[in-house]
């Protein structure tokens, strides 16, 4: 069964009349992970934000977005808000900037959980604590009382994953969750996302331009270029028998890079 079906999605800038995403259609199967790959400016993030209706006011969208059978475009603002976080959860690219810099991170957790659940303060704390521990954040209670600048990007990223764990959404949209991180934090975050999928069976849309990470986590891939989907299919097929020359280019670049890297390591050893 498809959790999310997108048909003929068009996104354009009403100010300049420029089309950002042309007529794209795709779907996310229940429990699977769809990766959207492409260079910056190819329309990946805008596509994902349109699923949650979070684009700027002057960015307009048309087409069908069916989430659990319901057309997202027809929901009222309030109904949409109720779905955000609880059913459709986003994990942002830059953890450092995703939390209000002048509040401790606990404030965000309390406010977002409070917006969806009628939990008492201690209930909230207990749930947050368990989720944070499961994403390897030590000493959760004191972390909740820290300001974003007192934590690392990787910690904040895991904080967002912990929140997603508490929400148990149907679909997680991860917008380049590893791009702003160093390799070790990247590894940790990917591990947590993999565990999240394993444990909760959550469906996921994973935006990235790192094919190595995509290969680890995704089941299907969309390749976007200049607002169009130019390649789609199961992950292994895209890696081995890409049709479009841009995809071939991406895959071969990735190979060349890792080849170079392996060579370097080999020579040093």
């Amino acid at each position, binding site marked *: 069964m498809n959790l999310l079906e997108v048909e003929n999605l068009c996104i354009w800038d009403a100010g300049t009349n420029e089309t950002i995403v042309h007529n794209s259609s795709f779907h996310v199967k229940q429990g699977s992970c769809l990766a959207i790959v492409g260079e910056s400016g190819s329309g990946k993030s805008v596509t994902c934000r349109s699923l949650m209706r979070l684009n700027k006011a002057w960015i307009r969208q048309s087409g069908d977005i069916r989430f659990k059978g319901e057309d997202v475009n027809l929901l009222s603002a309030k109904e949409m808000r109720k779905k955000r976080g609880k059913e459709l959860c986003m994990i942002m690219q830059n953890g450092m900037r995703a939390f209000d810099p*002048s509040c401790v991170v606990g404030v965000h957790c309390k406010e977002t959980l409070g917006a969806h659940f009628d939990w008492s303060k201690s209930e909230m704390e207990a749930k947050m604590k368990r989720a944070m521990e499961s994403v390897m954040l030590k000493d959760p209670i004191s972390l909740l009382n820290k300001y974003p600048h007192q934590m690392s990007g990787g910690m904040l990223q895991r904080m967002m994953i912990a929140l997603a764990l508490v929400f148990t959404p149907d679909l997680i949209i991860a917008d380049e969750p590893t791009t702003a991180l160093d390799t070790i934090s990247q590894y940790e975050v990917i591990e947590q996302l993999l565990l999240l999928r394993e444990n909760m069976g959550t469906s996921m849309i994973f935006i990235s331009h790192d094919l190595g990470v995509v290969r680890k986590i995704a089941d299907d891939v969309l390749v976007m270029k200049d607002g169009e989907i130019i390649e789609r299919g199961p992950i292994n097929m895209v890696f081995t028998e890409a049709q479009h020359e841009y995809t071939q280019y991406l895959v071969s670049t990735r190979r060349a890079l890792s080849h170079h890297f392996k060579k370097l390591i080999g020579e040093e050893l």
Partner: protein
Amino acid sequence: MGSYMVKRIGIAVPLLIMISFLTFVLINLSPLDPAVVVLQAQDIPEVTEELIAQTNEKLGFNQPFMIRYLHWAASCLQLDFGVSYVTGESVWLTIAPAFLNTLKLTLVSSVFIIVMSILLGVACAMREGKMMDKSVRGIAFFLTAIPSYWLASIMIWYFSVHLDLLPTSGMDSYRSYILPVIVLTISYAGIYFRTVRSSMLNQINEDYVLYGRASGLSEKKITMHILRNSLQVAISIFAMAIPIILGSTVVIENVFAWPGLGRLSVKAILSRDFPIIQAYVLIVAVAFVFFNTISDIINAAMNPKLRKDL
């Protein structure tokens, strides 16, 4: 936070010493011989060399510069700014009531300026590019472009003379405040609301706003977060606005015959009453340091990141 406050206030002390020194140096750079000024102010018909020497001796003008500065600085600390050359009265007793009057006008106006700036700034930022935003900015631009003495005169003519609703001048009751406060609010709020608006707009594009929305926070909560972060810029500007208004009410005070610091200082400058000018410059400068310190402390309380910078 406590240690930040101590450090921040600690920084203000050397600043105040520097200010007092500069004030003293600048006044002493004046080419006029203070003894001559004193004698002329006392309407002595013939200023002789002998009289000048006597006055110099009496008022200590012939002592070395640093000694005179230290004497002056030490007595300033006890709120003793000397005596006026013209009236012979204590400078403190002359300047304190005037300062109080100006401070009252400034504080009342500041409250209106801050409230109006925040209300208009938030309203415009929330409706960026819409009719309301454009018209408010247009009207504000027009109003701030009007010179305040002209606006003040027009208002006096219409509200006080034509309609006879409000007093034309003086400082008799709360009604005396209405016109000067309106004129000051119009001239300053028109500028400051733009700052609030643009810092709100900067914050609206921040990731935390998107993440807040993506997590299902209500627009009201999100606006509070945006406001909280954008006010940090505004607070510094508002805190500096208070001493700026304090030092620039000269025009308004003259139009409305407000018995304040501005009028007193103009009178002192025209009659070369150095002790009063000195005290005036010092008071305004101290007000700047004071409000600047306060704004830094408020900002540090709102944004813990700033506390580390000292």
